């Protein structure tokens, strides 16, 4: 046990790899939040009147709301007035080629290993990089435009496709949905916008990389993805943040709309700064993600690998409105040191013959607390609905916790709903078995954890799966005794 403890100590000291700060001149508005700040953000982004009105409506609704505290996480009070709600790299001129991107920012993305450079574009990934709050450069756009696919920053979409934005924004996550969604609706800075026209299968994975850089800024990005009839798209999202001592708030909103026969696959690898090993600093990741299968035979898949953030609190959900629509949720959440995660999904079955699958894998190590919270609701008219949920927890060490709170609400007799959960630890015998075959303890643990998460990883696009596996290794190294 003592060698194991030593290993834990050693490896727990592994520094957060992505903890560097880029010195770019930034345009940050003063801290604080009031209607003038909302107006300022809107005017900085030269938004049309209706969007400003929408923001103000959200802001007024937010003022009347109370911060929720039912979730199974503990964190200090958030100072909403001590945060700056907008930070943009100061260079304002429109970028046409990657060479024009600020070299400092380029270097940051290089360190992150984002394929933003020309040669990496050949790896068939179109990237919309969000640096703090403004989309820096969107690659591969022209090629996508040929197919009629719109992939741009949210602000550009507001300028170039206001009718689409106006029609869909807030249609899945209303501005009054919850405290953090309302806050986001009031002050959102930027994000990604995707529109796939009828019958088009997006030929490449679309990707956004989020990074919080400036101090004391919250990141409030907003993503809107619309797949029209028969369209399909796979979207990747990755997140990192530099090391900071204080906590930073990240309250994003993601809305997905799948029309008849459309498929949307949304994958996230979240690696925000988790705080140090005493639990100091780190990101508060309070995100509202929801998709609606509007048309018949549509499908939405959420896949997430959550290894970062000091507190994660999110429930990517599916509203299965169309008949025969499918919702899927695959998740791996890792909490180490003092990290806390309260995550899961909601599957709301409204249409007939709707199906949903939930596979959630929680891994807790150190003093990490991991909660799965999910709801499966079968409406009165959702005949022949089918749900299968499985949530497994793996505990590494005896000071961590794993919690499961599934909510099942069934209003139709033909529904078949199953929920299973299990909790286990990595067995001494499993490690012994591997070690006796010449596999080092560390590798044995990695192997067992990978096996534990396999069902989720195989849902990830190839490049992401590799990265996720690596991240998992880093997050858990040496945490087994």
């Amino acid at each position, binding site marked *: 046990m003592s060698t194991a403890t030593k290993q834990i100590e050693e490896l727990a000291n592994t520094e957060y790899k992505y903890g560097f700060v880029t010195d770019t001149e930034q345009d940050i508005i003063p801290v604080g939040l009031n209607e003038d700040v909302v107006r300022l953000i809107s005017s900085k982004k030269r938004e049309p009147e209706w969007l400003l009105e929408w923001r103000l409506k959200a802001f007024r609704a937010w003022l009347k709301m109370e911060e929720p505290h*039912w979730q199974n996480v503990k964190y200090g009070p958030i100072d909403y007035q001590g945060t700056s709600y907008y930070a943009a790299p100061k260079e304002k001129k429109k970028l046409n080629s990657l060479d024009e991107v600020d070299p400092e920012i380029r270097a940051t993305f290089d360190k992150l290993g984002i394929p933003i450079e020309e040669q990496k574009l050949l790896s068939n990934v179109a990237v919309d990089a969000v640096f703090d709050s403004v989309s820096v450069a969107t690659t591969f756009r022209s090629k996508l435009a040929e197919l009629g696919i719109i992939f741009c920053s949210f602000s550009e979409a507001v300028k170039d496709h206001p009718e689409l934005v106006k029609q869909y924004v807030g249609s899945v996550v209303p501005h009054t949905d919850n405290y953090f969604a309302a806050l986001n609706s009031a002050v959102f800075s930027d994000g990604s916008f995707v529109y796939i026209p009828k019958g088009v299968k997006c030929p490449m994975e679309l990707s956004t990389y989020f990074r919080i850089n400036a101090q004391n800024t919250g990141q409030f990005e907003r993503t809107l993805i619309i797949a029209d009839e028969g369209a399909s798209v796979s979207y990747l999202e990755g997140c990192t943040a530099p090391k900071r001592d204080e906590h930073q708030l990240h309250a994003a909103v993601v809305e997905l709309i799948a029309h008849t026969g459309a498929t949307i696959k949304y994958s996230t690898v979240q690696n925000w700064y988790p705080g140090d090993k005493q639990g100091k600093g780190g990101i508060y990741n309070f995100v509202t993600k929801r998709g609606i299968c509007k048309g018949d035979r549509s499908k939405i898949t959420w896949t997430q690998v959550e290894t970062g953030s000091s507190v994660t609190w999110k429930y990517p959900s599916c509203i299965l409105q169309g008949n025969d629509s499918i919702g899927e949720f695959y998740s791996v959440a890792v909490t180490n040191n003092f990290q806390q995660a309260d995550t899961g999904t909601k599957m709301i079955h409204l249409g007939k013959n709707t199906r949903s699958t939930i596979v959630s894998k929680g891994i807790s190590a150190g003093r990490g607390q991991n909660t799965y919270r999910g709801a499966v609701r079968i409406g*009165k008219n959702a005949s022949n609905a089918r749900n299968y949920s499985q949530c497994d*927890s793996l*505990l*590494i*060490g*005896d*000071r*961590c*916790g*794993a*919690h*499961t*709170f*599934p*909510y*099942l*609400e*069934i*209003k*139709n*007799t*033909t*529904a*078949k*709903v*199953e*929920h*299973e*959960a*299990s*909790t*286990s*630890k990595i067995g001494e015998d499993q490690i012994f078995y591997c070690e006796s075959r010449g596999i080092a303890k560390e590798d044995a643990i990695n192997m067992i954890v990978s096996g534990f998460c396999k069902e989720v990883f195989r849902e990830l696009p190839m490049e992401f799966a590799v990265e996720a596996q690596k991240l998992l290794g880093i997050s858990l190294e040496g945490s087994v005794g």
Partner: protein
Amino acid sequence: METLVQAPAWVRERREAAAKRFADVGFPNTRQEDWRFTNVAPIADAKFPLASGSFAQASSLIFSVAVPGSLRLAIVNGQFAAGLSDLSAMPKGVRIAGIRDGARDGSDGLEQHLAKVFNIETHPFAALNASHLDDGVAIVIASGAVVETPIHIVIVTGGDGKPVAAHPRVLVVAGANSQVRIAQTFVGVKDDVYFNNAVAEVVVGEGAIVDYYTDQRESEQAFHIANIQAHVAAKGVFASHAFSTGAKIQRHDIGIALNGEGADCTMNGVYLADGERLMDTHTSLDHAMPHCTSHEIYKGILAGKAKAVFNGRIIVRIDAQKTDAKQTNRALLLSDDATINSNPQLEIFADDVKCTHGAAVGQLDEEAMFYLQARGLTRIEARDMLLHAFAGEVLDGLKIPELREQIEKNFFTALARDIAVTA
């Protein structure tokens, strides 16, 4: 109210503390997580007056559910009714007293345990019950006593047609290495409106084995709130089996704390929710110490416009290693207008544990129905047979044959009622 004044100081203190607590929190509302699906406004709004004394049909009700061969303790409107009880075959090692008398006479264990096993902070209705702390029954089993005769507590409530409230209370203290089987039956006059707010506290000593059965067959217009809390010491074994077919709104809170190493518990239940009934069961299992095991199966049958809630919490405390906890919740929906909310909750703070929970909701297997009908059974007979089998796993835990027979009979009567409602 004369008796209230005579109560010893410690009883009065507990009563006042509970009254203060209830005054602070009041009736729960649906904004509270534990009461999200159960609206108790009908109880709060009705302002039921406290029942005083007995009512006309009390004795016939008590005899209607009598279990032959057992000791009988009658509680009428929350008061111990010695005259309607049958303690003639009192076994060795058992002491039974009305709580009021026991408290006054200073019987062992009462001051130590009464209104102390549950937490009034988290159970508003138990606080309300304790604010009326006065009478009920106390059963004390001596260390090492193996009680062969089952003890049957019959709890009847009524006000001769007028709506009343009663707050019955049971305290069981089982000494080290003792063994006892206790049943409680709740019954009222058909279609009477009343509010029964019961509390049972069970203290299971080291190595003791206690079986506790609950049969809830209240009036279909009654409001039934019951709270069973048990503390189990090292190597103690506690099993709770609950059967519910009655009341308009039922809320059961069953909490078991495994406070010593090697303790074991079973927490099973079957409920039948039909008509516009609301059946809410909240169970809580606290694995506070290592090497404890628990098994939990709750099964629900829903018909008509009924609503059921199952909330099963398992907490494995830090260092409660080698815990083995298994929870299963199954529900059969027989009608599209019925709703089930099933919320299992696992909170685990130790790593070397085995914890599983499963929840499944479905309907009767059409193939099985066809098979039985092809062999000459009517659709209703086939259905009842399958439902009986569905409940069988829990019924099998009943270790008092006479009681089992009675509960099964009531189960089928209730199923017939359901046909009348849904046909």
